[in-house]
């Protein structure tokens, strides 16, 4: 009997300890993946130069995927959108020139309260975007 009691007490302590050693502020700069890997997952290069046109295509693609656009900035080259389907999916896509002949498109997404860090959803997004611009998306070398 005593052993069981001790066990439960230990378990309770363990839970309290676990809860206390992880402050929620660590979420501010938290990522699961390494910076390099994350960028590779979230970034593609297109052989195009018209930032404006690419931004408009990104907006159209987001709309096709059921997002509504929250914000768009021509100077910054960034677009944010939200998709609601009982869940909340937020996405920000930025477009910037890479050299004189290419555009770099980066996307990052948040599903409810977690960052999306697996490659498949991004691949799907870039597939949809490639179809819309009639161009192939290259991974960053």
């Amino acid at each position: 009997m005593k052993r069981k009691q001790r066990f439960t007490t230990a378990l309770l302590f363990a839970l309290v300890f676990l809860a206390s050693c992880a402050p929620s502020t660590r979420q501010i700069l938290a990522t699961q993946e390494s910076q390099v890997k994350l960028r590779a997952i979230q970034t593609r290069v297109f052989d195009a130069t018209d930032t404006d046109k690419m931004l408009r295509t990104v907006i159209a693609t987001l709309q096709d995927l059921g997002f509504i656009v929250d914000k768009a900035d021509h100077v910054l080259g960034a677009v944010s959108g939200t998709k609601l389907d009982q869940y909340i999916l937020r996405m920000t896509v930025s477009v910037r020139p890479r050299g004189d002949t290419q555009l770099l498109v980066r996307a990052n997404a948040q599903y409810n309260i977690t960052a999306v860090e697996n490659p498949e959803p991004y691949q799907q997004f870039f597939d949809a975007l490639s179809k819309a611009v009639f161009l192939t998306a290259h991974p960053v070398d």
Partner: protein
Amino acid sequence: MVNPVKKNTVFRLWIGIGVFWLIFAGCAQTIPEEALQLSIESLEDRQLQTRRFHTDEKTLLSASAAVLQDLGFNINESETELGVIVASKQRDATTPSQVVGAVIVAVLTGAVMPIDKEQLIRASLVTRPIHMDDTDKSKCRTAVRITFQRIVSNTQGQITRREGINEAKIYQTFFDKLAQSLFLEAHEI
């Protein structure tokens, strides 16, 4: 012999831990597979949410902003360089059927059932030039796509519904109003 009362406590504690784990495991949700996949419906939705007008982008944008104001939306964000307007409004969300249901439950059981109370309706409107003509505005052609979403919360302040809106009638009515607005602005009314 094991004391039955103590045994019960230990059992409850285990259940508690189980629930605790389930809640935490529930936090680490993953994105549904179809969330970022183009479907056949995406094309249908696009057709439903898009119209083309014989006018230039600027005129269409300002006419659209006017319609959104007609409908009581407030503009949150706009980027005319990219043809984007984001607007929203907060409105009542009570439906008679829910109220009746809640009253019946209250009469029968005395319990207060939460019902939908408020909704945040968001609209984002995007224009896209198809054909541009610098000399004659009426020869220009511009497409406009609008999408609506809403977030409904109940009398206890909980969110009961988050959804995109795909009712054909709503979009049809919006574009009718937009056509009218374009007409009014062309005639400076």
